[in-house]
C-alpha cells in the first residue's frame, strides 16, 4: 500500500471535526488539520492545549468521540498504534520507551512484530542510521547512551517501518542546540524524500525555520492555520497564548549591598545509587545573596542527583560539602536544611513535591511542618488545620492558583496550577536559599512568566536562588550566571553578559570549558 503514488495535491492526512471529551473537559474540540505529502507541519500550542490528545488519536492510543480521519482520501478508523503503523504512521515520543539494560538493536526488535533475527535488525538499523546522518551503534547498551542517542534509536525504530507520516513530539526538548541542528538536517532529508512530518513543539524559532505549515491550538480548539515562515515569533506566541505575555523584568543586582554566599557546594561527589544513575564529580558552586544562578544541561546529566544532594534527601559524606547560610549542612537532613533557611522545589510535582491524594492544605504541611511548627502544630503534635487552611488560602491568592474546590486534592489541579501552589508554598516562607528544579516545566506561558518574575524578586530581596532547568530561554531570561551540567560535572558559571546560546550549547554537549573560553576570545 505504501507504493501507490497519490495524485499531486492530494492530502496525505486530513482530520475533520475530531473531538475528544474527558468527563466534562473537551480536550480536543472539532479539530481540523491537513497534512500534504512532503510537508513538515507544525502543531503549536501551550501545555494543555490538546496537542498530545490529538496526536494520541492519530496514533491510535485514544479513540475520538466524534469526527473523522482521512488517510490518502479514505476514511479510516485507527484503533491501535499497531493499526497506525500499518497505515504508515510512525511516532517518536517525547518520553522514550526504551529498556536501559538492553542494546539498541534489541530495543528496536522489541517493537517489530515479526521475528527478524537481531543481527539483521542491527545491520539494517546501522545502515539506515548512517544514511540519515544519525550514526548509531546497534550493539551499545541503551543505559550507556546519551539522551540524544536514545532519541536516535526511537527515530530509527520508527523509520525502519517506512512510515509516510512521522509524528515527532517535542523532539528538541532533550537536545543541545547542536544536536538539534543535526536532527533538523535529518528532517529536511526526510522531507526531500516525500515523507511528511507532524512536528509538535512550543519552540517558535525552530518552527519558523523548518515548517511549511502550522496549526495552532488553544484550549482544545484550532485558533488558526498559518505559514510560520511568514509569521514572527511574537505573532505565533500571541496565537498560542491568546494575549501578550508579560515580559520578565530582571533588574540589575544591587552593587552596594553585601553579597554573602548563602549556598555553597564544595567538592561534592556522589556515587551512583543505581547502575543507570549519574555519579556527581567534584561539583563546586557558590550562590550569593541577591543573585539567580542557572544550571543548564540536557536531561539526565546528573541534575536530579544534584538536587537530591543539595536538598538533603540524600546526605553527604562530609559536612562541609554543602553549606547553607554559612553553616555546614552536608550531614543535615532536609528538615534541618529547611531550618537553616533553605527551601526546595523538586522537578516532579505529583508524588515528590506534593502527595497526589492529599489536600492542598495537607500538602502545605508537607514541606513546612518543621519550619512553621509553631503556627501549624499544637500540643502533642496536633495539626492546627484552621491555621494551615488559612495559609493555603493566602498562597493560592498570591499565586493565583485556579482550582475547582476550596481545598482540592493535589492531583485534581492542572500541572501549572499545582506548580504555582508548590512554588508559592516555598516563597511564602521567604527562604534565604531557594533551589528549584525545572520551575516552569509544563506551565502555561502566563503562569511561567509569573513564576520567573517571582524567582527574580526573591533573589533581589536578598536571597540566593539556584535554578536547574532544561529550558535555555528561561535560564537566559532570569539568571545572573549560568553553569552547565554534563555527565555529572558542573562547569564554572558564565556571567550572563558573556554567555551565549552557542557557548552554553557546546558545554551541554560536553565540550571542555577551555574550548569555550577559546571560542570567546575568537568571538
Amino acid at each position, binding site marked *: *500500500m505504501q507504493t501507490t503514488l497519490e495524485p499531486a495535491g492530494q492530502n496525505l492526512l486530513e482530520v475533520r471535526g475530531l473531538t475528544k471529551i474527558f*468527563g466534562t473537559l473537551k480536550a480536543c474540540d472539532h479539530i481540523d488539520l491537513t497534512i500534504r505529502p512532503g510537508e513538515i507541519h507544525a502543531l503549536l500550542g501551550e501545555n494543555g492545549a490538546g496537542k498530545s490528545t490529538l496526536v494520541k488519536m492519530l496514533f491510535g492510543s485514544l479513540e475520538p468521540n466524534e469526527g473523522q480521519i482521512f488517510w490518502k482520501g*479514505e*476514511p*479510516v*478508523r*485507527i*484503533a*491501535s498504534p499497531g*493499526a497506525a503503523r*500499518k*497505515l504508515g504512521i510512525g511516532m517518536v515520543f517525547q518520553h522514550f520507551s526504551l529498556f536501559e539494560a538492553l542494546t539498541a538493536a534489541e530495543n528496536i526488535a522489541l517493537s517489530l512484530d515479526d521475528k527478524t533475527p537481531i543481527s539483521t535488525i542491527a545491520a539494517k538499523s546501522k545502515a539506515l542510521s548512517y544514511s540519515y546522518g544519525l550514526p548509531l551503534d546497534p550493539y551499545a547498551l541503551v543505559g550507556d547512551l546519551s539522551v540524544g542517542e536514545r532519541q536516535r534509536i526511537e527515530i530509527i525504530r520508527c523509520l525502519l517501518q517506512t512510515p509516510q507520516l512521522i509524528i515527532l513530539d517535542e523532539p528538541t526538548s532533550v537536545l543541545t542546540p547542536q544536536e538539534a541542528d543535526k536532527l533538523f538536517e535529518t528532517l529536511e532529508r526526510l522531507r526531500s524524500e516525500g515523507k511528511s512530518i507532524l512536528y509538535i513543539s512550543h519552540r517558535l524559532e525552530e518552527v519558523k525555520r523548518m515548517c511549511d505549515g502550522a496549526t495552532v491550538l488553544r484550549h482544545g480548539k484550532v485558533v488558526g492555520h498559518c505559514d510560520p515562515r511568514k509569521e514572527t515569533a511574537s505573532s505565533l506566541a500571541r496565537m498560542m497564548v491568546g494575549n501578550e505575555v508579560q515580559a520578565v523584568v530582571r533588574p540589575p543586582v544591587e552593587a552596594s549591598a553585601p553579597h554573602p554566599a548563602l549556598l555553597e557546594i564544595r567538592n561534592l561527589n556522589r556515587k551512583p545509587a543505581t547502575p543507570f544513575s549519574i555519579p556527581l564529580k567534584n561539583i563546586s558552586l557558590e550562590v550569593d545573596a541577591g543573585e539567580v544562578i542557572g544550571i543548564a544541561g540536557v536531561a539526565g546529566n546528573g541534575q536530579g542527583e544534584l538536587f537530591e544532594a543539595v*536538598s538533603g*534527601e540524600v546526605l553527604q559524606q562530609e559536612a562541609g560539602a554543602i553549606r547553607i547560610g554559612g553553616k555546614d549542612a552536608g550531614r543535615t*537532613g*532536609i*528538615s534541618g536544611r*529547611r531550618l537553616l533557611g533553605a527551601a*526546595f522545589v*523538586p522537578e*516532579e510535582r505529583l*508524588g*515528590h*513535591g*506534593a*502527595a*497526589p*491524594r*492529599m489536600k492542598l492544605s*495537607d500538602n502545605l*504541611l*508537607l*514541606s513546612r*511542618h*518543621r519550619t512553621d511548627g509553631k503556627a501549624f*502544630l499544637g500540643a*502533642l*503534635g*496536633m*495539626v492546627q488545620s484552621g491555621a494551615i487552611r488559612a495559609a493555603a488560602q493566602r498562597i493560592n491568592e498570591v499565586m493565583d492558583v485556579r482550582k475547582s474546590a476550596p481545598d482540592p486534592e493535589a492531583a485534581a489541579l492542572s500541572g501549572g496550577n499545582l506548580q504555582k501552589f508548590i512554588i508559592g508554598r516555598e516563597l511564602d516562607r521567604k527562604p534565604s536559599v531557594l533551589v528549584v528544579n525545572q520551575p516552569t516545566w509544563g506551565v502555561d506561558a502566563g503562569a511561567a512568566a509569573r513564576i520567573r518574575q517571582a524567582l527574580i524578586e526573591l533573589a533581589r530581596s536578598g536571597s540566593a536562588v539556584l535554578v536547574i532547568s532544561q529550558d535555555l530561554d528561561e535560564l537566559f531570561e532570569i539568571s545572573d550566571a549560568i553553569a552547565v551540567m554534563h555527565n555529572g560535572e558542573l562547569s564554572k558559571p558564565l556571567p550572563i553578559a558573556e554567555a551565549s546560546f552557542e557557548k552554553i550549547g557546546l558545554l551541554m554537549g560536553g565540550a571542555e570549558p577551555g574550548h569555550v573560553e577559546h571560542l570567546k576570545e575568537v568571538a
Partner: protein
Amino acid sequence: MRIELVKRPQRSALFSVLSPFIALALTLVAGAIMFTVLGKNPIEALYYYFVAPLSGLWNPDDVWQLHELAIKAAPLILIAVGLSICYLSNNWNIGAEGQFIVGAIVGSVLPVMFPQYESWIVLPLMLVMGVAGGAAYAAIPAFLKTRFNTNEILTSLMLVYVAQLVLDWMVRGPWRDPQGHNFPQTVQFNSSAILPELMPDSGRANWGFVFALVAALVMWFLVSRTLKGFEIKVLGQSPRAGRFAGFSSSRMVFFGFLVSGGLAGLAGISEVSGAINQLQPTISPGYGFTAIIVAFLGRLNPLGIVVAGLVLALSYLGGEAAQTAIGVSDKAVRAFQGMLLFFVLACDTLILYRIRFVRFAAKTTELAHGHA
C-alpha cells in the same frame, strides 16, 4: 472479550461509606447459598450465626453472651487497630498471630516461672512484658525489611509458624505443669496474674475489652489529628513526597511494626491472663489473621475497627452456636470470614475502578481499513 479495570476519575463519597455494609450484605447472601447447598435451612443457619449470640440485648438471661462477644472482640480490635497503623504506612504485617503468641509467652514468664509470687505488680509487669514481647517479635521483619529489603509479608507470615511451634514446645517441654497429668499446658495462673473481670455478676468480660477501646481511641486521635498520623499517611501514599517532607521511611517501618506488634502482644497476654488463665498449645482461634479482615472491614479507621471487630467476633460466637444447634462444621466460620474479606476488598476495588468489557470486534474493522 476481555475485562479491564479502569480507574474512576472520582471516588464516590457515598459508596465509600456504604461499601462495608454492601460487603456484609453480599456475605450474608453468599452464606445463605452456602447453607442451602449444605442442606441446611439458610434462614435458621443465619439466625444462629448472627442473631442468637445477640439475644442478651433483649433477654436478661442471655447477657452472659454479650460478655463472650466482648471477650472475642477485644483481641480482634486490639490487633486490628495496630495493623491499621502499619497498613496505612504501606507496611504489610501479616504476622500478628505470631506476635500475639510471643506476647502471650513473654507475658506469662512471671506466673509460670514464679507461681508463688503474688503481688499487685505482677499483672502490670505481665502486660508490659507482653507488649515488649510482641513488639520485639515484630521488630524482626522490620529489621529484615530495612536492612536487607526483604519482603515483610513473607517474613512476618513465616514467623507465625515459628511462634506457634515455640509455644507448642514450651507447653509440652520446659513449661509443662508438673502436676498436670502430662497434659500439654502450664500451671494455672495465680489470682494476682489474672486480668480482672469488668462486671463479674453478669459475665466473664475482662479489662481486655477496655484496653481495646482505649487503644482504638488513642490511635484514632494519632492518625486523624497529629503530625505523626500525617507522617504515616504521607509515607504510605507517596514515599518520595514523604522523604521530601523529611520523614524517614525506614523509621516508619519500625514504628508500624512495633506498634502493631506491641498491641498484638498486649492482646495475647490479655487473652491468656483474662480468658484462659494458662498457656496451652493453641491459645488463638486465628485472631491475628481475622484481625486483618477486621482492619479492612473497618476501613483502616480505628473507630470503624471497633465496629468491625464486634461483627467478626459475632461470627466466631455464631459459629459455635450453629455448630451445637444445627450441626454445621466449625470450618463454616472460616468460609464466612473468607467471603467477607473477599467482598470487602472487591467493593473497595470497585469504588476506585470500574469494570469495562472490551470486545475484540473492534480489531477486525481496524484491520479492514488498514488494508484499504
